[in-house]
């Protein structure tokens, strides 16, 4: 029994010695990684700056500012640090909470004058006997664009030393450029949304003119039909111009295409034939708003223009596991693939085939771009065409993609 216990103790102590040795070796190695104090200082400054940059890149808001202020204070080496936007104090880390009002007034002044200032003891009076705050440096957060987004306030216990002033100014400049980058990000998003809006405006002019002419021709001969058409037209525009939401469901997009085709049928009569084959399983699939409609418009134009007799447009949506495959096909005159590529490359297509309407390239490439930007580069449009052999445009849409949702 005694031998047993001593064996256990022996094994245990051996294991702990081994663990201790491993730990010690690990510590020593870790230290050797950064050799000189200079390197260590550089590393620490860059690391802290990196930590502060992350919340700042989301823009100036109270939550982000609170996270950033902690790291910025370490960076400046001040006893307290506050961040403000153009009219209010967003966050304060460390000392100086009861000087909030004074700091805010000073920050406003700095933002208005766009010049940094140093506050002395006289400007920071308070009735607390034990208050250690003696000075503060207030610097504007100016980005590269020159616009002032807010101010950085460094609070100190002693009189503000020149080193602190210098550090605060540099940090404020750096933080300002991070905030400017955040603005850049959000303006890029705005640009993408503006593109969708532009597309909405783009479909219309041609089509509106044609639709109104077609409806006009029925007003005397068949007023009832004219009325129905106008209602369809109204519903169609309501969907196309709707203000909210970047995404829609396949079912809704098809409903809008139905209205569009009803109006086109009024214009072309029996010349326009439509064939549909939609798997019911994919009707709830979410896809970018108005990404099918331009393809159908394109097919109608191709299937019927410059071609006698009837034209057939077929729309097919198939269930394919985790994806939905959609094709829009016409049996029209088709086009030379080279022309299409050139047209897409030039986008505006001003020097393209003079007989060709440049608008269609814009429509196709816009849809292509939006699909790629939403689902990834593997999900662009595929166009199969040749002179005299019709056009077939197909796309793949995943049934689920994070961040994509109808009605948002």
């Amino acid at each position: 029994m005694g031998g047993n216990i001593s064996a256990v103790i022996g094994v245990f102590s051996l294991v702990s010695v081994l663990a201790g040795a491993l730990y010690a070796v690990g510590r020593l190695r870790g230290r050797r990684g950064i050799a000189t104090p200079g390197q260590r200082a550089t590393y620490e400054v860059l690391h802290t700056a990196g930590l502060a940059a992350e919340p700042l890149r989301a823009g100036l808001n109270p939550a982000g500012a609170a996270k950033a202020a902690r790291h910025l204070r370490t960076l400046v080496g001040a006893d307290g640090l506050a961040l403000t936007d153009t009219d209010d104090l967003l966050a304060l880390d460390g000392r100086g909470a009861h000087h909030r009002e004074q700091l805010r007034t000073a920050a406003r002044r700095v933002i208005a004058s766009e010049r940094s200032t140093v506050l002395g003891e006289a400007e920071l009076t308070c009735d607390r006997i034990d208050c250690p705050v003696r000075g503060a440096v207030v610097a504007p957060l100016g980005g590269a664009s020159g616009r002032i987004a807010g101010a950085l306030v460094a609070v100190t216990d002693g009189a503000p030393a020149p080193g602190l002033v210098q550090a605060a100014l540099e940090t404020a400049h750096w933080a300002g450029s991070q905030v400017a980058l955040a603005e850049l990000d959000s303006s890029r998003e705005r640009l993408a949304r503006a593109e969708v809006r532009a597309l909405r405006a783009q479909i219309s002019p041609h089509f509106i003119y044609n639709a109104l002419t077609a409806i006009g021709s029925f007003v005397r001969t068949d007023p009832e039909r004219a009325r129905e058409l106008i209602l369809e037209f109204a519903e169609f525009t309501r969907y196309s111009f709707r203000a909210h939401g970047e995404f829609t469901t396949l079912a809704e997009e098809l409903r809008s295409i139905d209205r569009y085709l009803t109006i086109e049928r009024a214009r072309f009569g029996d010349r326009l034939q439509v064939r549909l084959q939609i798997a019911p399983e994919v009707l709830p699939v979410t896809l970018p708003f108005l990404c099918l409609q331009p393809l159908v418009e394109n097919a109608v134009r191709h299937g019927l223009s410059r071609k006698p007799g009837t034209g057939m447009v077929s729309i097919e949506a198939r269930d394919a596991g985790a994806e939905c495959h959609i094709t829009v096909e016409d049996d029209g005159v088709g086009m030379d693939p080279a022309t299409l590529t050139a047209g897409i490359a030039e986008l505006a297509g001003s020097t393209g085939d003079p007989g060709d309407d440049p608008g269609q390239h814009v429509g196709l490439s816009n849809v292509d771009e939006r699909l790629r930007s939403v689902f990834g580069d593997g999900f662009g449009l595929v166009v199969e065409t040749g002179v005299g052999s019709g056009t077939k445009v197909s796309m793949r849409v995943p049934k689920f993609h994070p961040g994509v949702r109808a009605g948002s």
Partner: protein
Amino acid sequence: MGNDFVVPAIVAVTLVTVAIGFYGLRLARTTSDFLVASRVVSPTWNAAAIGGEYLSAASFLGVAGLILKYGVDVLWYPVGFAAGYLALLLFVAAPLRRSGAFTLPDFCELRLGSRRLRTLATIFVIFIGWLYLVPQLQGAGLTLATLAGSPYPVGALVVAAVVTANVALGGMRAVTFVQAFQYWLKLTALAVPAIFLALQWQADGRSAVTPPDGSTFRTATTVVVEQRAVLTLADGQTVEVRPGDELSFAEGEPVPEVSGVANGATDWLLPSAAGSDDRGLFGTYSLILATFLGTMGLPHVLVRFYTNPDGASARRTTLVVLALVGVFYLLPTIYGVLGRIYTPQLLVTGQTDAVVVLLPEAALGAGTTGRLLAALVAAGAFAAFLSTSSGLLTSVAGVISTDVLGRGSVRGFRLATVIAGVVPTVLALNVSGMDVSQVVGLAFAVAASSFCPLLVLGIWWRGLTDAGAAAGILVGGGAAVTSVLITVLGPGLTGWPATLIAQPAAWTVPLAFTVMIAVSLATRRRAPADIGRTMLRLHAPDALRS
């Protein structure tokens, strides 16, 4: 053996299935009318499709076999298989549909925003899918072997090949139509013979299912033993039999008692030893938990809910599924009970899973009626293999092609289908000795201990974090997976360990919930920042959202 109608019936079912899959859409949905083309699937149709996909070989063959063998205890299988939809209806159906997720990994990414968790969920989806596919192929092998006399691997290989080719070549395009057709076919294939069987039983003077002096052979029977067992003959003598032994019994001779099977009338009719032995009770509770909570974690069932246009119709669909599946499960019970009278030799051979396909001929004689009904049942059984395997294979292949191969092209999906089909085929060829329903029960146990906590907590508790979810799935699901592997591959255990491993759900499900909650509380800071928005998306009624 040798029923001339069976092979044509099976071929016909296969051809009809493939044809509907390929051309159903073209015939039913080619139109120039948008109202027709964009009509959504009604809850009734979708419910029939879910039923078709769900009612597998385990339900069609296995449940009756288990009832024949073990009696009233295993009634929990059909009850649980059906009642799983109640849990799905109450906790998951509508919020999951509103979330917009197509597969379980999608839900993980949407709710917890973690790619790593998505990978983990993918692994579990593939494992559950394969575990569920094995008994389907096993059932196919068994059915063909019993009815057409082919060797066991033929049936498994045929079904595996047909299903893999069909899914890979796009034969499940009209999946809702195919699966709905399969449901009604399966129901007919069991219901029509059941009526004939009940009438025959009446005509035979309603023989007692459990006569006081033990069941007897109705006709002279020769039995070929397929599983090692110890028989206790009528005169008290015990005989050990091995696979391949032949035993002959004269008409009216009592059926020998078989070890490991509920033999006497009281054994078969009463819950086993609930009072005397806690293990039986534990096993039963385990089974109830696994089947109640496992249904919501089955990958091929959840993807069908995507077809519903909104949360409300998802809920209505689930309600209809509950009714359809509930009606179906009455029938295997009848087969199991009548099997006690007409096919007692199956107790000796150990091939109790074959009771459904053998019963019509045994009860009605080898005349045309009996053979036609046997062929109908065989066709229904094949519909069960085809529909469930196709559904599972589509889900597993979809997950493999998007999450493992990482390319969503048509060729990627085909490659994934072949990969997803080969593995369970190899497994099915190597494990033939297990009860079909028990293997399925294990798949349910894994689903209940991994995805059920994830779904329930993910939908109803704001505090769930990705670390908590991953820990819960790893610990609970991992424990269930280990139990499955030990059951399938490992050494035979006895006593409590054997019970805990054979029916793990009663300890793995609470374990998974506990770990998930505890780790989530410990890592509260990792909770996703946009949880409020996600919750609104899951729970706000559809009318409010547009």
